């Protein structure tokens, strides 16, 4: 999995999520969990963190790639911020590679193969989160 990079979490994004009362179905440690429809990386929920928080000692990247996923519990599409957790070596557990809405590398803002550890102390990639930041009304 060297060379893949992957997915991102904002403190503000986490705060926003707490205000959304989401109906939930599924296991956040399972790659099939609905929020992971565009994730490419190790799931932080298997690495000592959660689907929306980095593990202890890992730094959330402020810069991230954003996708949308349908929540099967209510049929709505939600905006997901795939923040990477950075500053530690690769977690190595629960690798998950789903690419809904992913575009080729020549279109970096919408590509999940690049390392999104940008703006952090180091660009070492550890794992990926999937933070719900809003309802897609577009």
């Amino acid at each position: 999995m060297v060379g893949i990079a992957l997915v991102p979490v904002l403190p503000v994004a986490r705060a926003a999520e707490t205000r959304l009362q989401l109906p939930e179905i599924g296991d956040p440690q399972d790659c099939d969990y609905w929020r992971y429809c565009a994730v490419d990386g190790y799931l932080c929920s298997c690495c000592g963190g959660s689907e929306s928080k980095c593990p202890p000692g890992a730094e959330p990247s402020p810069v991230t790639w954003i996708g949308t996923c349908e929540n099967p519990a209510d049929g709505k599409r939600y905006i997901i911020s795939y923040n990477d957790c950075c500053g530690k070596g690769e977690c190595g557990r629960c690798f998950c590679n789903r690419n809904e809405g992913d575009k080729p590398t020549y279109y970096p803002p919408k590509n999940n193969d690049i390392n999104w550890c940008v703006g952090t102390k180091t660009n070492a990639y550890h794992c990926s989160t999937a933070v719900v930041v809003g309802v897609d009304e577009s």
Partner: protein
Amino acid sequence: MRWTLLSLTLLCAIAAADPKSHYMIHCMGCHLKDGSGLPPEVPAFDNKLGILAASGKGREYLVAVPGASQSPIDDADLAGVLNWILTMYADQPSYQPFLESEINHYRHKPIKNPARLRHELLGATN
């Protein structure tokens, strides 16, 4: 008042496209939820937006800069999200709203060096 009403009409006309969702999906990943960005690589959305929106060259820059011109939304939606950004983050709301026709006019004129052009447009305020 007339201009304000016109602005409101234009903004309401594009409201159905939900520019906030477009901002979150296509802009927020790098410019962040509060528009603070990651300067200098990702410029902050602040009062400099008003300066840029007040000149023809500045408006061309705002539309043609890669993050805007290459976003996978049509001209009307790009106009909507740019106007939403100006309303949210510029300190003076008296700018002229972007129209779909203006987006179409500027969108296909690539900027060879966006950072240099931004510096030229903003000078010492950059």
